[in-house]
């Protein structure tokens, strides 16, 4: 009786998984080997032609470079910032709960809103940056931050890199659950609070930091909305990443086979980064 219900209970989740994850993932790989566009809906097998075209496409290298760079920045600067804040907060200084909550706010509102907000913060007419520069007499430094080739990349990065609320929340929760006795032992052995943090607490948090790095890498790998709304990937292709490149090929060229070739590269870059993070932090130890 009980056994009979198992498939019924699993079915909705499995169907959803097949429709939105598994089948699309298979389609990305298969159609990347086909000539497949809006103008000629009849698919034609062309082997690795799309990949050969991709390997000679300078825009692809720009997008790949930006994607990889952003993943690295997010896994280092962003995660370090969130972890540092968590290490200060786990000793429960006054107001720690408020700080944790406030820091989460940018992570729970929509990226479309964050994008719009920063589009305005960087606005060269009335944006915050411009207004502040004007107020301190440095108006001549103002530029169209998101559209100037020299400042677009750091400006777009700024839109997400500081908001490490998820990292802080996760690392903090793990730090709070650490065994008090271990920390006491370090103290008895004469370790300063700084030494305890670096040599005792941090190593114990390795696993959760690894998890936040995987989350940060996945997040940056699929980043689309914040770039689309702020810089749109420009000027030129200077802030285009792989998802934006894919979207451009898909909407602009209506070349689905080629767009999905970029999709395959996104998946592969993801696998490479997961492997690197897991290897370097041994996140997948048996105790996981």
């Amino acid at each position, binding site marked *: *009786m009980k*056994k009979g219900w198992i498939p019924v*209970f*699993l079915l909705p*989740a*499995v169907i*959803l*998984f097949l429709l*939105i*994850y598994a*089948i*699309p*993932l298979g*389609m*990305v790989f298969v159609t990347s080997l086909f000539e497949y566009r809006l103008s000629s809906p009849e698919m034609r097998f062309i082997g690795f032609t799309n990949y050969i075209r991709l390997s000679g496409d300078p825009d692809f290298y720009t997008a790949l470079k930006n994607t990889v760079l952003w993943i690295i920045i997010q896994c280092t600067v962003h995660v370090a910032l969130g972890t540092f804040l968590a290490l200060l907060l786990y000793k429960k*200084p006054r107001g720690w709960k*408020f*700080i*944790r909550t*406030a820091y*989460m*706010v940018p992570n729970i*509102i*929509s*990226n*479309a*809103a*964050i994008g*719009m*907000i920063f*589009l*305005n*913060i960087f606005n060269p007419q*009335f944006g*915050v940056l411009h*207004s502040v520069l004007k107020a301190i007499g440095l108006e001549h430094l103002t530029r169209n931050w998101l559209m100037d080739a020299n400042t677009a990349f750091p400006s777009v990065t700024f839109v997400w890199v*500081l*908001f490490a*609320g*998820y990292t802080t*929340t*996760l690392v903090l*929760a793990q730090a709070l*659950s650490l065994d008090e006795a271990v920390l006491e032992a370090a103290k008895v052995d004469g370790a300063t609070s700084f030494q305890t943090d670096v040599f005792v607490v941090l190593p114990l948090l390795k696993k*959760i930091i690894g*998890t936040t790095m995987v989350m940060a890498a*996945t997040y940056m790998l*699929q*980043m*689309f909305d914040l770039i689309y*709304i702020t810089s749109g990937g420009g000027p030129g292709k200077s802030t285009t990443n792989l*998802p934006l490149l894919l*979207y451009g090929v898909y909407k602009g060229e209506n070349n*689905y086979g080629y*767009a*999905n070739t970029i*999709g395959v590269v*996104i*998946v592969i870059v*993801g696998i490479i980064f997961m492997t690197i993070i897991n290897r370097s932090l041994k996140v997948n130890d048996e105790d996981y």
Partner: protein
Amino acid sequence: MKKGVLSTLKYIFFSCCVFAALFPIVWVVLSSFKSNAEILSNGISLPESFDFKGYTDALSISPILSYFFNSVVIAIISTVLNVFFLAMAAYVFARCEFRGKNIIYFILSLAMVIPMTALLHPVYNVVQKLGLYDTKTGLIMVYTALNLPMSLLIMRGTFLSIPRALEEAAYVDGAGFVRTFFQIMLPCAKGGLTSAAVLAFLGSWNEFTFALMLTSGQEARTLPLSLSYFTAQFSFNYTAMFAAVTIAVIPSILVFAVFQEQVVSSLTAGSIKG
């Protein structure tokens, strides 16, 4: 002495973090009450008076109201479906033994790391083949699935933490599998269900990329999309644009304010116990 300096530095750092996180939102909300002229003359001044013209403008020049209702319908239905379907699956994974259980669970949880923007076109294809392009149903289906891995993780953990004795008592009393699930287990798992629901709701409410890909008309477009409307067509009515952004962020902030303990504990439960 050294301690005092360090403690001061610490609080300066805290202030910077809180400021960085809250300033952008406070700035937008304040700006939504300023007139266009005020905004253009000084971007960081306080509003001279509280004027709701931006809000009435935003409602009249853009379809933000109908987008808002689309968002409400889509986010609520997809959240309910997500929690319901994944609670069923999570329960089976937590309690039943069957062949291939671990491998099926592993494959489903891979969804967590599949980069969804790589699948833009095939997902569009699936939705279109099902005749659901540019419909609320299409977005509901996709959003129900997008929140699959997190909900599965959270609710499996919740069911695992409930003592087995409860169900055994129910079975002894003659309750069947389905009745035990609905009448005993679901009420016991309320905390996990709420956590999963809050995260699923925020995810659906805030989603932008698939909404952009899978809709074209006012029937199904959601609130985040209405914001990009303001960059294109009404780029000179800044007050209305700030008002629109405020309208879009308030529900997320309210939901978070009410359920923040839940969000925090669910995030932690999901990723730490894993």
